């Protein structure tokens, strides 16, 4: 089975989605004991909300814990189809609503970080490949690779300590200044950018090296290919050889990588938002974890997982469109 075969991609997407749904469904059943009675018992943070009797009853009903498993699964799927992700304990509102409230912030920083890391990574990769084995290339290789080995949230803490705690250049928490009065749209955008700057920087740095290395190495591989020599032989000039022949081939894997990057960033955002107290879906997940708000945890997992899968799917489809060698 060809890895880039269109049907295979769809098939894998569907299977993976089903696995996630099944996991999401089964997880509450795997919990030691009765999830809803133990909830209140392992209090270790003041955030944990003790459930009221009414809420507990609601959960029994939502999860249908008293009914047989297949029936539970179907009612779970039916609920999902209606867009009903259940009721959050912590926020005391529908899970879907909570997610919709916080998702835009995550999308904002993830997309910004994707754009920045891709553009900067590609540009640095090109510079590095064209100056292969020269000083600038070696410097970038060593520096960026060392950077890549530091996990994003540790990097986030370092940036936070330097820029927020020590230099006091950026806010320690939030996506906007609370209770601010904006003088105009620009002011508002500025405030949002100010808050988003460090999370975006952290996420970008985390993904930058991957894009950079991929671009550099693919370009170097491509530049040794025979068709580059053919193009040079035709006397097309350095510029056309690079832009039309080398870059086009080298950027194909970068395209696929971009979808992958979005997925990685969605995962990384959970930790980075926690570091910066940025009110995206990641911080919400962390709060839900601390508060043992299981419906919210599940809802967020579903949304994050499905968006990651969709990004990968889109990237694969895009690759098929761009590379004529892939037979539809």
């Amino acid at each position, binding site marked *: 089975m060809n890895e880039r075969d269109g049907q295979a991609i769809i098939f894998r997407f569907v299977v993976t989605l089903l696995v996630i749904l099944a996991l999401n469904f089964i997880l509450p059943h795997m919990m030691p004991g009765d999830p809803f009675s133990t909830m209140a018992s392992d209090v270790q943070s003041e955030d944990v909300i003790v459930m009221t009797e009414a809420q507990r009853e609601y959960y029994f009903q939502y999860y249908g814990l008293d009914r047989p498993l297949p029936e539970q699964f179907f009612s779970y799927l039916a609920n999902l189809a209606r867009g009903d992700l259940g009721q959050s304990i912590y926020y005391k509102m529908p899970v879907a609503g909570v997610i919709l409230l916080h998702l835009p912030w995550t999308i904002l920083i993830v997309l910004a970080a994707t754009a920045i890391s891709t553009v900067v990574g590609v540009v640095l990769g090109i510079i590095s490949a064209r100056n292969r084995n020269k000083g600038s290339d070696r410097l970038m290789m060593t520096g960026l690779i060392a950077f890549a080995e530091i996990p994003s949230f540790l990097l986030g803490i370092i940036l936070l300590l330097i820029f927020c705690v020590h230099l006091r250049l950026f806010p320690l928490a939030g996506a906007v200044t609370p209770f601010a009065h904006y003088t105009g749209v620009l002011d508002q955008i500025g405030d949002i950018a100010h808050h988003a700057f460090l999370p975006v920087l952290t996420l970008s740095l985390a993904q930058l090296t991957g894009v950079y290395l991929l671009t550099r190495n693919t370009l170097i591989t491509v530049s040794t*290919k*025979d*068709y580059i*020599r*053919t*193009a*040079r*032989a*035709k*006397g*097309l*000039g*350095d510029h*056309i050889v690079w832009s*039309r*022949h080398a870059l*086009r*081939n080298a950027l*194909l894997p970068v395209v696929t990588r971009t979808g992958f990057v979005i997925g990685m960033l969605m995962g990384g955002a959970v930790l980075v938002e926690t570091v910066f107290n940025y009110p995206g879906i990641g911080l919400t997940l962390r709060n839900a974890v601390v508060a043992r708000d299981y419906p919210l945890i599940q809802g967020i997992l579903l949304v994050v997982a499905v968006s990651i899968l969709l990004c990968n799917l889109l990237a694969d489809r895009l690759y098929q469109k*761009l*590379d*004529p*060698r892939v037979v539809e």
Partner: protein
Amino acid sequence: MADLEVKDLKCHYNTDTSVVPAVDGISLSLEAGEIVGVIGESGSGKTTLGLSIMRLLDGLASVSGTIVYKGTDITHLPEPEIDRIRWKDIAIVFQNNLDILNPVMTVGKQVVEPLLKHEEIPVREAQARCADLFRTVGLDPVWMDAYPHQLSGGMRQRVLLAMALSCDPKLLILDEVTSALDAFTRKEIRDLLIDLQKKNGYSMILISHDLSFVSSLASRMIVLYAGRVVESGPTVDIINAPRHPYTRGLVHSTPDIFVYKDLWGIPGESASEDGHAGCPFSRRCTQPIEICRTSPPRLQSCGDGREVACHRGGIATLLRADAVHFRYPLPGRKTLHAVNGVDMDVCEGEVLAIVGQTASGKSTLAHILAGILRPESGEVRFMDGAVHSGNNGHRFGGIQIVFQDPFSSTSNRFTVLDAVREPFDINRIGTAAERLDMTREALKLVRLPPTDEFLGKYCGALSGGQRQRVALARAMIMKPRLLIADEITSALDVSTAANVLRLLKGLQNRRGFAMIYISHDLSLTLKIADRIAVMDAGRIIEIGNAHEVMLHPRDDRTKRLIGTRVGHCCHDHKPVGMAGRLQTRVSDCGDE
């Protein structure tokens, strides 16, 4: 003035650990409209040569020497200026592979690209030109919208050709254009090249390892070995009479040139970068001398527009006979003039066959050449001394002879060991242990078991084929420079004869000694001979390239000899059929 003049070109690839000289001082010149072939096996530097003319090696290799195109030294032209010459003046048809065309661009776009750049014509016109080019090379223009991976190898080769022709270049370099193609496509491309060259009149450099392809197109040829020119000259002369041992080996390795002969490759591996100072071919050469290991030979003219790079001036003469006469006394004061004024020579590493009827004097001649009989007049010189100074048979590197009758060539009372090591015993060479070892080696060479049991066998107990091989082993133990095989297969049955013959030729090919093969069997002779001398009544009536003698016999008696071959494929006297039959017979028998 020549269109292209390459002088002392050197290209060295620098790897992490070593410097590989891919091209090591090549010079060549090309007139307008001329077709020159560059021949060499893989790793001989021929592709590097093509790339360096296009200046495509920058950064990969260090290049020195000069390349002058139409009076302009293009060796150090800056990139934008060389770009103007590329494709417009000098275009290259690359060896076809999947990667040679950009996989994400349609082939039409890739052919149009140089047109837009160099001719500066509108896209629509360029596309029309491209469609014309496709038709010229025999491709339907609908393929312009195809991607490279959708085309077959032959079609891609045609696209590459169309692409190279797009800007009407003055000089076309073709790099192994046929090597990946099947025989039919190869012929089509060849015919196409001939037509196009006639029409457009550009000059061509054909780079290939395919001697028959190059020789069918090029008027001049350059033979490369390990980055050096070893021989150059007119194609016909080189094919018919190669001067360099390497060229001779190449010719022998090419089935299309001498269709009757069995195929024998050049023994040994082609020279690699384990640099030693001498001639790069010396390790595989049939005639190395001391200087070959210490200094590389220069390319020197040897007349008729030919050049060869060899310390020995090309293939050297090993043995020369001058006006040799020999008469047998007959009863009644009559004499039989068995050898009547024979002049001939034998070159290093070649197989010369002497054919003729019974009593034509060929065996007598053989005995004279070996120094067994003394000629009445005339002289035989081997290497530098006269044969009859008498030290050729009992020293290493001399002349050995194997006789016709296997049953009398070794004594029945001798064991195999005694028979084979006899020359050592006679000449007191080596200790007993050394003699035993060399005997075993010699037996292995002739594919006889080197076991104690076999060594202890009496020659009388052996079959004819085995005894002939014992005799051969006895000759081989003295490591001869020249082996004379006098009708050695005539007493053997067909299958044994085929085996002994193949064994002999194999030994000759590996060891590189020269051989005089004497036979009355023309068909068998053709399988192994490089040259044939036809003898009749004590004279050599015709001598020449085996192929030439066979196809275009000049003397009537030779024609008669060729006509004597009988067999059901030969009724129309077309030698090709004969060769085909023999091919099957000999090769079916295998080596053993």
